[in-house]
C-alpha cells in the first residue's frame, strides 16, 4: 500500500543536490530579510518567558552572595540588571519577579530553602500582596527536577530570542498572520521587551494603548477592585506572617530589603486613598526586621515619573537602580566596593 508520510522503502528520484542548496539559501535570505524588516519597523528582541525558565533561575539561589529580586512587573521594569552588574560584576543577580503575582509566597519559599543565604529585594505593594493569584504553577515546576536536556534547550532558545527579533512572540509567523487578518495591518512594536535574565524594559514612546487621565483612573479602579483589600487588619496579618520568614533568612546570614516601587499620578492618588502610606507602609516599616525602602523616602527616587502611573520607563530605570543601590549602600545592606564610580 502506498504511504502517507513516507514510504521508507524508497527514496524519490528528485534532484536533491539542487533542492537543498536552494532551500537553504532561501531560508538564510528569509531569516536575514525578516530580521532586518522587523528591526526597521521598530521591533526589539524579546524572549518568551515561562515557568520553566523561571524555575531554572529559582533553582540557582544557592549561589554565594546572590541577590534575588522578587516582586511583579514594577521591579521587572524598574530595576536595571546592567546597572547592578556594572557596580557588582562578580555578584550573581537573579530576577525572580513574575508579572501579576505577589511577593510573599516566594519569600516564604526562599525562607524555607536552607541553601539560600543571599539578599532578597522584595517588592511590596498592598494592592498586590494580599489576595493575589498564587504562584503554585511556578513553584511546582521549580520543585521538580528539570533535565539537563531541557535546561540547555531552554537556555539556548532564551538566548536566541534575546538576540533575534524574528524569534519574538509578537512577530512569530502565525501571530503575524492572525494579527493581519484581525486588524488589517502588521503588529506595532511592543513597548515592553523581556531579556535573557528575565528583567524587562519598557519604552513608553512605543506605547500605543489608549491613554488619558480618565482611562488611567478607570484602570486603577479596576486594579483596586480586582486585587485590593482595603482592610488594614488583613494587611497587618499578612505582614506579621512575613516576619518569621525574615528572621529565618537573617539567621542564615541573608537579609531582606522591602521595597516600595515608584507609582505616580492616578495610581498614586488611588493608592493613597485605598492604602494610605501612613497606615500601611509606615506601620509595616516600623515593625519589620528587614530593610524597608520606600521610594517617597529617598530623594533620588521621589521625582521619577511612571508614564502609565505604575511602571518606570527604561530611560529611568538605571537612575532608579543607582539610587536604590546607593540607598542600600548607605544603609549598610550592600557594599559598593566594585567600580562604583563608573555606574554612579
Amino acid at each position, binding site marked *: 500500500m502506498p*504511504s502517507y508520510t513516507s514510504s*521508507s522503502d524508497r527514496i524519490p528520484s528528485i534532484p536533491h543536490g539542487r533542492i537543498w542548496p536552494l532551500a537553504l539559501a532561501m531560508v538564510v535570505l528569509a531569516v536575514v530579510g525578516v530580521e532586518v524588516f522587523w528591526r526597521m519597523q521598530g521591533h526589539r528582541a524579546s524572549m518568551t518567558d515561562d515557568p520553566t525558565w523561571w524555575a531554572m533561575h529559582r533553582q540557582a539561589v544557592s549561589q554565594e552572595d546572590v541577590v534575588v529580586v522578587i516582586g511583579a512587573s514594577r521591579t521587572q521594569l524598574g530595576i536595571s540588571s546592567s546597572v547592578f552588574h556594572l557596580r557588582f560584576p562578580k555578584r550573581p543577580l537573579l530576577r525572580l519577579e513574575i508579572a501579576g503575582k505577589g511577593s510573599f509566597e516566594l519569600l516564604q519559599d526562599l525562607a524555607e530553602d536552607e541553601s539560600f543565604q543571599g539578599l532578597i529585594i522584595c517588592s511590596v505593594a498592598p494592592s498586590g500582596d494580599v489576595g493575589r493569584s498564587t504562584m503554585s504553577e511556578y513553584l511546582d515546576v521549580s520543585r521538580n527536577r528539570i*533535565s539537563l536536556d531541557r535546561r540547555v534547550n531552554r537556555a539556548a532558545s532564551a538566548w536566541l530570542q534575546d538576540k533575534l527579533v524574528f524569534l519574538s512572540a509578537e512577530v512569530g509567523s502565525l501571530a503575524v498572520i492572525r494579527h493581519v487578518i484581525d486588524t488589517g495591518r502588521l503588529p506595532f512594536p511592543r513597548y515592553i521587551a523581556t531579556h535573557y535574565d528575565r528583567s524587562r524594559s519598557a519604552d513608553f514612546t512605543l506605547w500605543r494603548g489608549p491613554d488619558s487621565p480618565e482611562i488611567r483612573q478607570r484602570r486603577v479602579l479596576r486594579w483596586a477592585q480586582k486585587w485590593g483589600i482595603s482592610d488594614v487588619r488583613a494587611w497587618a496579618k499578612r505582614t506579621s506572617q512575613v516576619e518569621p520568614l525574615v528572621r529565618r533568612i537573617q539567621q542564615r546570614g541573608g537579609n531582606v530589603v522591602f521595597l516600595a516601587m515608584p507609582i505616580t499620578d492616578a495610581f498614586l492618588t488611588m493608592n493613597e486613598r485605598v492604602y494610605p502610606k501612613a497606615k500601611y507602609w509606615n506601620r509595616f516599616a516600623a515593625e519589620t526586621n528587614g530593610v524597608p525602602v520606600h521610594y517617597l523616602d529617598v530623594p533620588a527616587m521621589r521625582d521619577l515619573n511612571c508614564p502609565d502611573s505604575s511602571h518606570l520607563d527604561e530611560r529611568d530605570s538605571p537612575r532608579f537602580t543607582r539610587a536604590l543601590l546607593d540607598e542600600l549602600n548607605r544603609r549598610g545592606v550592600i557594599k559598593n566596593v566594585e567600580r562604583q564610580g563608573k555606574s554612579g
Partner: protein
Amino acid sequence: MIFNSFTFLAFFAVVLALHNLPLPWRWKKINLIGASYLFYAAWNPPFVILLWMSTITDWFVARRVDVATSQWNRRGWLGASLAVNLGLLGFFKYGTFLLDNWVALLGSLGIPFTAARPDIILPVGISFYTFQTLSYTLDIYFRRARPCNSFVDFALYVTFFPQLVAGPIVRSSQFLPQCSEPRGASIPNIAWGMMLLVIGLFQKVVVADGLLAPTVEWVYDGSWSPDTWSAWCGTLAFAGQILCDFSGYSSCAIGVAMCLGFRIPDNFRAPYAAIGFADFWRRWHISLSSWLRDYLYIPLGGNRRGARRTHVNLMLTMLIGGLWHGASWTFVFWGGLHGLYLVAERILRRVFASRVGPVGPPMRFVLMIVTFVLVCFTWVFFRAKTFENSFVVFAAMLGTTLDNARPLISTLNSWIVLLTVAAIVASHWLLRDTSLEQIVERLPWWLTALAIALMTMFIFTMPGEDRAFIYFQF
C-alpha cells in the same frame, strides 16, 4: 530529548558525524547504542536501567525459548518475559490506576480503605519499547523467527533512538537484518531523511501546536462548558492535532533513521481518508494495530472461530488497545467505541455485501466523511480528562449543552480550525492511493525547495508554548 529542540539538533549532528567516520560497522553500532542511551537518559537518567532490564531479559529468554524442547518450558520462559516486561509496564503505568480502582471497589463494597498514593513517574516511551521487545520474544515463541546472534544488534534493536520513545514499534524481522551489514547513508538518503524531518516538525510545531492546540485547550481544559459550535471546533481541532503530533513524530523518526541508513516502517497512511474502521486501523498507528492483530487478535482466534467469537476478539483487542494508551477508563471507553464500530462494520458488511455492488467515488467520499465524523466522536473520550468532561463535550456536539455553556472559540479561530482540518482531510483523500514520494516526484524541484524553505521558516518562527509530543505519555 525531543526532535523539536536545539539539543536534538546538536546531538544529531554529532551522531551523524560519528556514524559517517570510517570506523568498523560494529563500532558504528556501538556508537548508535551509546547515542540511544544518551537520548533516553536526557529525560531521566535512572530509567535507562529499565532499558537494560528489557534488553537483557528478552535477549536471554528468547534464546531459552528457542532451545527449549518441551512446550511447558517454552511457555515458562515466555511467561518470564511477559512477567518482566508487562510487570514493569504494569507497575509504572498502571500502578496508581489499579490502586485507585481497588480502593474504589472496596469502597463500593462498604469497606473503607485508604492507601498512600505511590509517587510513580511514568518512564517515557515504556509502552513502545515494551511492546517492541515483547514482539521479538513472541516471534521466537511462535517460531516465526530465530534468536539474534549478536547482542550488540539486539541492544540496538531495543534502544534505537529515532523510534525509541514514541514509535513506530519496529519488529525484529524488519530491523535486525539491517544490522548485519554496514549501513551508510547516501546523499539522497540524508537529503530525503532531512526532508521528512522538516515535514514532521512542521506537522508538530506549526499545525499541531501552533494552529490547533490552543483551540483544543480552550474547549477541553477550560472552566466553561462549550456550546455546540465550540465543542465541534475543539474536537475537530483535536482530530487534527493528534494526527499531526503523532504522524509528525513518526515522520521525524523515519527521517532520522533514514539519515543513518536505516529503514523503519510507516506508521500512518492517510488515515482520515479511511472508508470504514477496519480501513482506518490499517492506516492509523499501523505499527500498534498490526502488533495487536498479530500478538493478540490472531492468538485469541481472530476470525477463525465464528462470528460471535470474532466480535468478542475484536472488542477485547480494542479494549486492550485503548488501555495501552493510558491508565484511565476514558481510554478503555475510546477503545471500546472503536471495537463497537469494527463489530458493527463487520455485521453491516455481511448484511449488505451481497445486496450492494461496488460503490462509486461520490459514495466512497460520503463514507469517508461518515467514518471521519464517527472517529471524531471517539476522540472526545481520548482527549477529555474525565468521563464528566467527555460527556459534556459529547452532548454539546449533539446539541445538548449545559446552562453555563458559552461560545469559547472566536470566529477567526473557528476558521483556522475548519480550514486546517479540511486541508488535512482533503490531503488525505488525495494521498489515499498514492504516496508522498510520488507527489514530490511530480512537483517541479524548485517548488519542493520552496516548500521546504517555507516549512523551515514557519518552524523557526513559532515561539509557542513548549509542548511535548502527545504520544510520549503512552
